[in-house]
């Protein structure tokens, strides 16, 4: 694992200065997680996480940008070939991203890893693109909410390398993907979120192995859920992660938006908990009838 830089005092000072110019949110790790009102939503369709599941349950309109690598495991019949909107059109265009208040990037979205998981072909078209990373940073800076799950973590690591210390070599895509399949009893450690939910534990299901492991976070990153699941750091030996972040949120310095990252899949969790977590940590969505984006 490569040692990570923590947020420097100078960095924090600069960030504090920027806070004077923002209107919505305040404070490093003290920003309000809950209470965000959100409307236009985009989701990417990736192979391993149907991030639209809670939105569908809550009847939240959203536009789907297809990003399937091989097959939508959550619905193998999903005919992604006919989806007009592609993930490259979303992350590759600052204008397109800015049309949405919230963007969910699903685990297994193409272009965000070292190579395709079932082959040798490279799959880093998006995450290695300076334009994509710039668009992503600008999006959050301008108030956008970015929700990233599991294998899409490289987008966060490359965009804000100082915020989250992922397992493995930070310079190698996918290096953090060492978690083991299983289920773990986890704690909802953020008081604000626990208060909003009314409970402070949740069973976290890792329905596939090789999920992205977080080792540590910068001070301005708020840990929402933490637990002690298993991982295999060397590819062979299984070890227990002690009280590691499983879901985090942070507001990058100078940004008006926020970044939410889950190491687990949204669609593999207990729906009632996930819907509540999404609402608490991401925001209150404008439900169908008032939305401006057609449901795909």
């Amino acid at each position, binding site marked *: 694992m490569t040692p990570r830089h923590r947020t420097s005092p100078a960095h924090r000072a600069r960030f504090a200065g920027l806070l004077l110019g923002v209107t919505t949110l305040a404070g490093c790790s003290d920003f309000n997680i809950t209470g965000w009102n959100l409307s236009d939503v985009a989701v990417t369709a990736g*192979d*391993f996480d149907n991030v639209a599941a809670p939105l569908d349950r809550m009847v939240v309109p959203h536009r789907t940008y297809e990003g399937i690598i*091989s*097959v939508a*495991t*959550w619905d*193998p019949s999903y005919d992604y070939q006919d989806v007009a909107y592609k993930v490259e059109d979303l992350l590759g265009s600052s204008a397109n991203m800015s049309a949405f208040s919230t963007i969910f990037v699903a685990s*297994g979205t193409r272009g965000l890893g070292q190579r395709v*998981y*079932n*082959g*040798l072909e490279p799959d880093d078209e998006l995450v290695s693109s300076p334009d994509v990373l710039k668009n992503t940073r600008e999006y959050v800076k301008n108030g956008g909410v970015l929700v990233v799950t599991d294998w899409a973590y490289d987008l966060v690591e490359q965009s804000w390398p100082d915020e989250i210390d992922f397992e493995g070599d930070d310079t190698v895509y996918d290096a953090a993907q060492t978690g*083991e*399949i*299983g*289920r773990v*009893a986890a704690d909802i450690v953020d008081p604000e979120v626990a208060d909003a939910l*009314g*409970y402070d*534990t*949740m*069973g976290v*299901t890792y*329905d*596939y*192995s*090789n999920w992205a492991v977080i080792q540590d976070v910068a001070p301005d990153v708020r840990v929402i859920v933490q637990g002690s699941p*298993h991982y295999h750091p060397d*590819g062979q030996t*299984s070890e*227990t992660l002690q009280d590691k972040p499983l879901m985090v949120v942070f507001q990058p310095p100078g940004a008006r938006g926020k970044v939410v990252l889950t190491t687990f899949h949204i669609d593999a969790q*207990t*729906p*009632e*908990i996930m819907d509540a977590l999404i609402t608490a940590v991401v925001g209150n969505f404008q439900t169908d009838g008032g939305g401006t984006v057609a449901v795909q």
Partner: protein
Amino acid sequence: MKRALLIGLWLSMMALAACKPHQVSTDTSGLGDTGDTGPTYQLELSPPSAGQGSSLDVSLTANVSTFRFGETRLDLGPGITIDSITVLDVFDAVASIHVDPDAELGARDALVSVGDKDWTLPGAFTVIDRSIALDPPYAKMGQVLHVSVTGTNTNWADGYTYADWGDGIDVLDFSVLSPGLADARIAVHPDATPGLRDVSVEDGPEVTTLYQGFTVDRAVITAFWDPPEVHQGDSVSFTLTGLDTHFSRDTTIEFWDDGGPNPDIQVTAQTTADDTHITGTIQVSNAARLDYRDVLVTTGDEAVLIPNALKVLDSPPNLNDVVPQIGFDVYRTIDNATGTLQERVQAYAVFFIPLDPPCGSSSQPSDGPRPYDNNGVWPIPPPPDPVDCPNPETLSAGDFVWFEGPENVVPLHKDVIQSTGQIIYWGQDLTLDDYHFGTTYDLHTQGDPHGVPEVLVEKVQPTVPADYHLLTPQFWGDLTVSRNQDFEYTWSPAQTYPDAIFSTQISGTLAADGTPGFAGCIPWDDGDHTYHPSELQQLEAGPVTFSASSFIQGRYFGLPFSRYQTSRSSSTLSTDAQMILQ
């Protein structure tokens, strides 16, 4: 190990949880947080059933805040023990249960208690008589592995019980170890859809299914083969690129078709560069079976199957390589019950391309008698170990082939062996009238524009010089011969001298070691010969076969356009009879 067990148990539970659970909507009385306008209260058990004698985890899922730490209990009635219950959160709990082997079959109520509140879920859990469990309950994409299949109240039998893992997973082998235990070797295709799937075990009319009981994980271990196509007869370089593999110098590479490993493609050179790279050379037999092949790469306990890794393409036959093989024989058998002489005349021709590389070993040459009148006893060597060789490619020479002699013509009709596609020409309904003694026939092909053209190869198929018959004793009616006395027999001379040869033998079991053997001789073809007690006593008492043969070989020959000119035909007139040594 404990952690592995826990993961396994969890996976089983998770897998089962994904099946259609028995869902119970209960009266919400006692649930103050649901309210009249809240959602319908739902509490589910998953899996909703278990087999007698099984231990498993059952998940309890509520759609409103329900469970509390230390205050949640589950009662599934008599015969089911709740070993523990773990609350994961207010919506989820997991109970470890054991179903007694004699627990009453059928549906039963579940009683869930949280604090002082109780909910009865009518018929929420069912005890079934047969069930299966898998260990491990998951595999990587591309992985080849053994899975232990445990059955409860099953009666599996090897060869009659089969398992099905669904699309994208091949069951390479299914071995039943006991009525309730089997070992399955499965190959998960690299492109198998990740996720949960059903697994069924079929035992005659009985099918036991574990719904959503096996997870294809998204972790991939596989390899990629290049080149994707080869031609029959090719010797080509290959590269094998692994994904998360651990190749070594001991890595083995096999080529599989529908019937399993097929040795008609052989690795002739192999260099392992590192964990994920192997290069080398393969030799594809010129008769290699056409179509796709899987490649199985095994390194110790690690094995990956690359489905349809390469395709074997047909190579047009080269006439320069064609070898003819012909024969014309008469087989006689004396019916032991009636003394009737049963006679069969057989003529054949085949045009084939010898296997390249050669496959298998030829039969060990057997020792035997030498001319003339040198009696002896010899073992019959065992047949060589069977080798799975490809079927040599055969060519058509038209609809007919003829053996043409000065006095008659023997037509041979084209026949295609359905199972192999090989072409062979047979004489049909031949009798002794078609077999002219002392003749050397020409080989004449009709010709096939896509195979062997019309050719006439002169004087290649001989026949024995003359007919002969066994005269005394009468070789039928359980002819019994004492091993302690001379056994003299006579025949009408076969006129074999000097071009052919006449031989006899008594085939049975060697008294010395109980292995097959025979007493044999190449007698002067004068019509009279004797086996002596010194030879007969080396055979065990009991039924034996007496055989007499007249035999002749033809000249070396080949097709005019072929590089092979080493074919040599022969002809035999044999007579077999049964007798008893005592």
